[in-house]
Each structure stands twice: as structure tokens, then as C-alpha cells.
């Protein structure tokens, strides 16, 4: 039994070996077959190709990306819980269905909250807060 279970993963292992060897052979082949010229700093410099870069290529970007990424992780984890349930759905029956509905219901409120508060609105600025008094 355990041997069978692992056999399902044999294709994954083969794919892995294929990927590694494909990348490795290509790198190796280009190293072995390609021509090599002595390196020259002047040749590597940008010559009449526009401005020298002023800043780093990477720049800070809006906090919205993080919000989306974090919310994605949270709902991703939710989906992970669906997976084992879906496999055993018939055997677990009514009780697990109700459980899952409660689970999803709670997170549905979370989704409602995210949408209603406009956390995923990309274009509009956050609405100005109305203070308590």
C-alpha cells in the first residue's frame, strides 16, 4: 500500500529530473560550445544607449499590493481546508457539510467586510473617515 501511494509521485520525480537535466544540459552546452571573448569593461558599458541609470531598478510600490497579497493568502488557506473535505465528502456526510457551511459562512462575512470597506478598490482613494463625533 505505501509503495503504491508513493508510486503516484513517480511522474513528479521524473518531471523534476527532466527539468533539472534540461536546464543543466543547456547551460553546460552553451558553456562548452559557445565562443568566449576576453571581457572588457568598455565593451560592457552603455555606449550611446541612453542615460546612465539614475536609481535602482526596484522601486517601492503601493501598499495595495500587500493588502491583496495578504488577503490572497488568507483565502488561500481557506481553500486548503476545502480540499480534504471534498475528497471525503460522501463518507463524512451531513455533519461535515454543516461544519463546512459554518466555516465558509464565517469567511463569507470576512469577504463581505473586505468588499464593503473597499479594501480591494484599486482606483478610488480610501473614503475619508467620518469621525465619531
Amino acid at each position, binding site marked *: 500500500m505505501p509503495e503504491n501511494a508513493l508510486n503516484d509521485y513517480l511522474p513528479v520525480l521524473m518531471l523534476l529530473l527532466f527539468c533539472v537535466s534540461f536546464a543543466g544540459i543547456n547551460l553546460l552546452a552553451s558553456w562548452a560550445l559557445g565562443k568566449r571573448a576576453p571581457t572588457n569593461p568598455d565593451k560592457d558599458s552603455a555606449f550611446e544607449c541612453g542615460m546612465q541609470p539614475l536609481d535602482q531598478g526596484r522601486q517601492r510600490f503601493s501598499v495595495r499590493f500587500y493588502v491583496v497579497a495578504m488577503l490572497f493568502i488568507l483565502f488561500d488557506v481557506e481553500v486548503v481546508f476545502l480540499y480534504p473535505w471534498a475528497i471525503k465528502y460522501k463518507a463524512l456526510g451531513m*455533519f461535515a457539510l454543516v461544519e463546512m457551511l459554518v466555516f465558509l459562512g*464565517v469567511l463569507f*462575512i470576512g469577504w*463581505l*467586510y473586505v468588499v*464593503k*470597506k*473597499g479594501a480591494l478598490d484599486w482606483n478610488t482613494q*480610501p*473614503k*475619508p*473617515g*467620518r*469621525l*465619531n463625533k
Partner: protein
Amino acid sequence: MDTSQILNVFGIEMWLGVLALVLIVADLITGRGRLTGPADMVRLVAMGGLAVLLAYAFMLSPAEQASSWGTLDTFALFFKRFFIATALFTLLLSAPYEARFTGGRGEFPALVVFTTMGMCMLASVSDFVTLFVALELVTVTLFLLAAYRSGLPRSIEAGIKFVIIGAVAAAFLVYGIAFVYGTTGSLDFEGVRAALAATDEVPKGLTFGLLLVVVGLAFKLGAVPFHIWVPDVYQGAPTPVTAFLSVGSKAAGVVLLMRLVFTVLGPVAGQWATLLAGLAALSLLMGNLGAIPQKDMKRFLGYSGIAHAGFLLIAMAVQSEASASAVLFYMVAYLFANIAAFLVVIVVSRTPDNAHMDRINGLAERSPFLALALTVSMLSLAGVPPFAGFVGKFLILRAAVADPALLPVVILSLVMIVVSLYYYLCILKRMYFREPVDTGVLEITGSTRLILLVCVVASVVLGIYFNPLVVAAEKGAAALFG
């Protein structure tokens, strides 16, 4: 798979969850999707709901038979009431503070209710899986609450430090649980206890696992050497959250450590006493000596909290029924003293939220009532008779002297009580004999007065007429040994 059995044990938690959902929906409706809706309604609903649940918890009687889901014994019930009361106090405390939350007020009560739900679950856990999930529910919401004033760098700093330390603590805990499961094949407390009782020679892997679990919980408790986060987080977090942390989070660590030490580790209790006593001694030293030079009230209370964790650890090292009941009493005394102290800090620090000790200079002139409340709170924390804190310390030390091996720690704790008296009295000196630095008007609302009055009266009454609570604490502790 009996639903009624689960609800029997986790009924309060279910209702707390429902309450939290109601709060979120209420916030969405009243806020009309705005960022910061009016929060008064949400907070009132939260307080009403918690009050009803507190009453419900007092009416509830412990379940007759233990189930594998969790235990609802008198011990669990005692702490559930404690946690709900703490949450109620926290929300009351947040009312005068709320103007300082620049946005997102509606979510604050919901997050507090979530934390409370996790804490109440912790009181009833009987397996490591539920323990971990409930503990994460508590810590994650506390991270968020600590960073809640995200406009303030200090609050963000507190949140980030708390997250990193919390993650390390969780890693210790999970790693320990993995070792416990690997060596015993059981995730239930009962199974681990049976495995410990079955062999004379405990496998090293199991000891290692349990050690890591204890370390993970010691972080929660703020015991030395796992205390580094305490002063920074206490100082940076919004003051009502600090109050919640100092009482609720510490009690969450206490309830788990007690279950672990008194029931799971029961068969090998002797081997663990030395370790716990060592942690206790370090916490006493570090907390009390560290508190002396502090210039910020919240930081100061943080160090004092570390010292109190030391006292609680002494009681756990003793491992008798008397010491367990002493812990329960001590926690209640600590609750009232701490809530009063933090409420005074909230009022005194005013809008700039400056908790420097100068701000309490001459408090007796500016508001005799606040000064009185803080005096009672400090004396109760110091353990001066006739306040509740004295009875708590007395009960712990009385239980500790029964064990001759703990004599050095007891002597150390007596010395440290004298040291603590010094710094608590310094606070009194500032209030009564110094000129006020801050001369602004102190906003003391009716609810502030009421809470302070409750805390002062409770500290005094429990210090004189302590018998009912001692009996209740003994009943609660008996369940652990039953």
C-alpha cells in the same frame, strides 16, 4: 460526534464567536461601508453581549463527565469568567481612549471579542491541536491590537516586535508538540500523561518536546529569559490593549501552564519543579530590579508584570492544591489592581498619550480620587495588607514554604517584595509630594469613576473579606487534581 456534547463544553466560545460576527456586521451596517463608522453602537453591543455571557458563565455548572473535546471543570469555568470580565474591563477602558484611535474604531471591539474567544477556549483545551489553534487566535488578534494605532511609530514597533517574538514562541511550541506526538503517538493531554506515568525513564525526546512547549508558554507569561518583548510592547501598544495584554495574555499563559504542569506533567512533577523555580527566581530578580529605573508608567508596569509572573511561577513549582488555588486568587487580585493602574495611566496621559512618570506628579492635588485609586492599586500590587495583593502573595508563600527545597526562592521573593515596595512607594511619593508638571484638565468621565471605584472596592474587600474567593479558588484548583 455529538454536537450537544461539544456545545456543552464550548458553548461560551460559540456565543463569543457569534457576538464577534454580529459586531462585524453591525460595524458594516452602521458605518455604511465607510472607513470609520460611529463605534459607540458597536462597543455598546459588544459590552452588552459580554455582560450577558459573563452572567451566563456564572450560571453555568461544570460538565459532569470529561469529554475528549475539552474539559469544562470548575478550573476552566473560573478562568472563562476571568477572561470575559477582563475583556469587559478592556472595552470599558477603551471608551475614554477611543478618541485617540484615528480610524477603524468599529473593529476594535470585534478583535477584543475574538481574543476573548481564544482565551476561553484555552481554559478548556485538553489536546495540543486545540491548544495551538486557540493560542494562535489569541496571539494573532493581540498582534493586531498592539499595532492598532498604526499612525504611531511606537505602536507599529510594538506590533512588529510582538509578531517576531510571537512567531518564535509559536515555533518553539509547535516543534515541542511535534516531539511530544512523535514520542507518545498522542495529542491528547490524557494520552501524554499516561505515557509519562507508564515509564520510569521518560524518553529524552518527550522531555525535550515538553520543555519546548513550556518555553513557548513562558513567552506568553513574560517570564525571564523570555521577557524581552514585554517592556517594549507594553510601552508601545495602545494603553487599553496593554491592560488587556498584562492581564488577559498573562492569564492565558497561566491557565495553559497550570493545566500542563499540574495535570500532564503530574507523574514527573518533581523533575520540573527545579526548572520552574529557576525561571521564577530569574523573573523575580529581573522584574523587580528592572522596574526601579523606569521612567515610563507603562514600561514600569511591564517590569512589575514580569515580577508578578515570577510569583506565579513559584506557585507552579510547588505543585500542590494549595499553590494552585493561590494562583487563582493572585490573578483576580492582579486583575483589579492592574486595570485601575492602567485606567489612571489612560486618563493622566491625556491626548498626547504621554505616559511618562512626570505626568502623575502631584496627582493628589489635581484629582484626589485618581490618586487614591492608583495608591490602592500600587499597594495591592506591592502586597501590602489589607489589600487583595497581600492575600495573594501570602497564599503563594504559605504554599511554597511547605516545600523545603524551595526555601532559597522563597527567601529571594521576600527580599524582592521589599525591593518592589521601594518602587511602588516612589510612585506614591510622586503623587503626593511632587509639584504637578502637567496642569491640564483631566477628563474623568462617569464610567471611569465607576470602574476605578469597582477596582478600589474589590481590592480592599478581597483583602479583608477574602474567604469567598479563596473558597472559589480552591474549588477551581481542586478540579486540576481531581
